[in-house]
């Protein structure tokens, strides 16, 4: 007997015609018929919010048939701090602190969106040096954020080594950002009108050293994880999102571009120094997890290119426009968006002419990625659920706000 299932499906002992065991005696609910090795009932599994692979506090409720997911639901709100309500009592130049705590891995992009919205209300002209500095720190943040994604995505698929190398490079970026802004993650560096302080002396040499090293490191990263046969087997052809589904569910950023649709806010709605920067927008074909991996890896290379251009082309001049200490924009309503590490991070501000926003809305790209997760998970194995959450790069700080 080689197949263990024969143990539970063996009917050799049954006498002919004795298949009905009859009803159980009083006090016993069902007859002890042993293990049914063939049919399974659906099981509802709760994953998270305290689960290491959910990248924060995502709670996922999945209904499984054996190993296969038949339905999934995301349950949010474990990190809900009411950023939109808090913003209604913050002055306009304090909004950056709230945005830092939204998408806390790429805080600069949130600050940038808030600053752009307020500038659009004020109709203020931002000096070139401020615009270039913003693009510089935004691209550095993008590399740092993608490195976190790269490290943890590898962990989600069972690889280990890449995480430490990713953290090593991310530390170098955080050191640079700390020298520029004074903080490692909660920067509050980009303010309406410009940036809060000029670049420190000698930072360009430090950034150049990082850029030169990082090109080689990126090839190593790709060889270490992308060249791993087990990783390739886990991600290639899994979790395909076609372009129509991605657009219908409002996906943006690398997740949308992996599906073959090359929409990038930096190119379609240029802001800050991006009209002057030379960069390519990588686009995938099938939209599977492997394409999302490849697009993000190429985005890091492009970001590194842009960082180098920003350092080389940094103009002279003021680092901020003349903006009053207490900003009172005229009545109105604006929407401004930036390409953050996760997609289109937008800020919709309604101003009533006072020193605080009347209504402040934060468009979080990860919220839309959560929706598409409910759509694509059914049909996949439960082991792939963790990998698919990782491939979409969901940041719970911004979904819950």
């Amino acid at each position, binding site marked *: 007997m080689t197949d263990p299932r024969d143990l539970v499906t063996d009917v050799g002992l049954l006498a002919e015609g004795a298949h009905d065991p009859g009803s159980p005696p009083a006090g016993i609910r069902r007859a002890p018929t042993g293990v049914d090795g063939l049919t399974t009932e659906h099981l509802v599994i709760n994953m998270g919010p305290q689960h290491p692979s959910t990248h924060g506090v995502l709670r996922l409720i999945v209904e499984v048939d054996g190993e296969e997911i038949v339905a999934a639901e995301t349950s949010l709100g474990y990190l*809900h701090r009411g950023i*939109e*309500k808090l913003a209604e009592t913050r002055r306009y130049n304090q909004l950056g602190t709230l945005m830092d705590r939204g998408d806390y891995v790429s805080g600069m992009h949130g600050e940038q969106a808030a600053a752009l919205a307020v500038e659009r209300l004020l109709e203020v002209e931002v000096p070139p040096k401020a615009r270039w500095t913003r693009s510089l720190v935004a691209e550095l943040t993008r590399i740092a954020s993608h490195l976190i994604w790269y490290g943890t995505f590898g962990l989600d698929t069972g690889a280990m080594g890449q995480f430490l190398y990713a953290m090593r490079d991310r530390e170098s970026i955080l050191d640079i950002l700390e020298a520029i802004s004074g903080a490692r993650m909660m920067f509050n560096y980009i303010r309406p009108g410009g940036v809060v302080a000029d670049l420190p002396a000698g930072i360009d040499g430090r950034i150049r050293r990082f850029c030169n090293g990082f090109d080689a490191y990126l090839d190593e990263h790709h060889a270490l994880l992308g060249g791993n046969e087990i990783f390739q087997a886990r991600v290639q052809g899994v979790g395909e999102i076609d372009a129509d589904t991605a657009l219908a569910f*409002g996906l943006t950023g690398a997740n949308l571009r992996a599906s073959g649709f090359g929409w990038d806010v930096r190119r379609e709605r240029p802001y800050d120094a991006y009209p002057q920067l030379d960069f390519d927008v990588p686009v995938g074909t099938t939209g599977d997890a492997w394409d999302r991996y490849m697009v993000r890896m190429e985005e890091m290379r492009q970001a590194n290119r842009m960082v180098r251009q920003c350092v080389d082309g940094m103009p002279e001049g003021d680092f901020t426009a003349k903006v009053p200490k207490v900003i009172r924009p005229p009545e109105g309503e604006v929407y401004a968006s930036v390409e953050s590490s996760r997609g289109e991070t937008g800020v919709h501000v309604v101003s009533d002419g006072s020193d605080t926003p009347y209504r402040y809305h934060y468009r979080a790209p990860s919220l839309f990625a959560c929706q598409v997760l409910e759509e694509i998970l059914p049909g996949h194995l439960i082991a792939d659920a963790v990998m698919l959450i990782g491939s979409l790069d969901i940041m719970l700080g911004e979904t819950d706000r």
Partner: protein
Amino acid sequence: MLPDATVVRSILSAAGVHDAPAEETSLGLVCRVPGSGAPGVLAALRESELDFRILVDMLGTDTGEGIEITYHLRSLSRDEELYAKTALPYDGDLHSVWNTFPSALLQERETAELFGLKLVGHPNPKRLFTTEGLEPLLRKSVPQRSVEEVRQR
């Protein structure tokens, strides 16, 4: 960037919304539609020659007289953006547009919960962020600090 206002008006009147103002504001081109008609109007805008295939964003605003819902639409083929606004009464019905734009699924749950609206026609009309029994947080009548917290200060 801005779609043609007369074309938008003709699409709206074809969808049954007559005398709908479509005007340029600091936000862009904004059109106003009645609350219960929003799903039909958004579907008409999506199928029209303006091709508004994407619902970028959706938010509510407490105007003091009621809740104003703003839908932010984007056309990729023509690279244009349009905002559609509907005014709803407090505790009114928010008619779901998920049949046209699945990207509204979670946003509608969030808006309905935080502004105290009732979701109509939504496949999963549950609260999204907060627990049962909490006040609609984003309404202006709900204070940011509780009465107890203010008293302690």
